[in-house]
């Protein structure tokens, strides 16, 4: 396995409540694509597949599932929003 990197995951809404925390650190192989990160969440938190319209932010900017992760990156799982 490529040398592992450590990334921070920001959790919101029901994910945050399931985890009991708004941040988690995950250890994943170097260059893991953002879109693969969900599967690294503990089952108790992810509770299965991600919602269809899941979006991602990388270091506070919108990103696409294929973006490769680097050590120290922060990824946010942006669940389907319902603001306003």
């Amino acid at each position, binding site marked *: 396995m490529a040398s592992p990197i450590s990334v921070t995951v920001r959790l919101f809404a029901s994910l945050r409540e399931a985890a009991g925390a708004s941040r988690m650190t995950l250890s994943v192989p170097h260059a893991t694509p953002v879109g693969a990160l969900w599967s690294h969440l503990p089952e108790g938190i992810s509770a299965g597949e991600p919602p269809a319209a899941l979006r991602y*932010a990388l270091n506070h900017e919108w990103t696409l599932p294929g973006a490769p992760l680097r050590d120290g990156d922060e990824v946010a799982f942006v669940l389907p929003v319902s*603001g306003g």
Partner: protein
Amino acid sequence: MTGLTADPLDLAALIAAVSDPENGGLTSFLGCIRREDAIRPVIAIEYEAYEELTETELAAVAAEATSRFGAHVACMHRSGRVEVGEPSVAVAVSAPHRSAAFAACRYVIDELKVRAPIWKRMHYADGATEWIDGRDRVADRRPA
């Protein structure tokens, strides 16, 4: 003036922020919490935002409306608990004439609804709560 606030929204402040003696049209919008009696009565909604990206997106949407409609834009969204009847989002826009003012105001509210990473937790009159975040209800069994 764009961003998040945990305080009650102050439309007058947003209006003052966009007033301009050269702008004859000033349009504003308040998104208020609906009781939705006919569906499942609501008492309040709790808003949780991904703050950094929300601030960036609100500023970006405002800048786009400014350049596209020649408008001054102010837009604030609530975080935290908002009671029924209270506003959770406020937009105020001024432009030389009303057409641009209406178009810009509509643009801002439509865009922020999609682009601002903010989630609602419904507080129903029957005591139940529910996150509206695209995930099924399994997550609600866990104590809040």
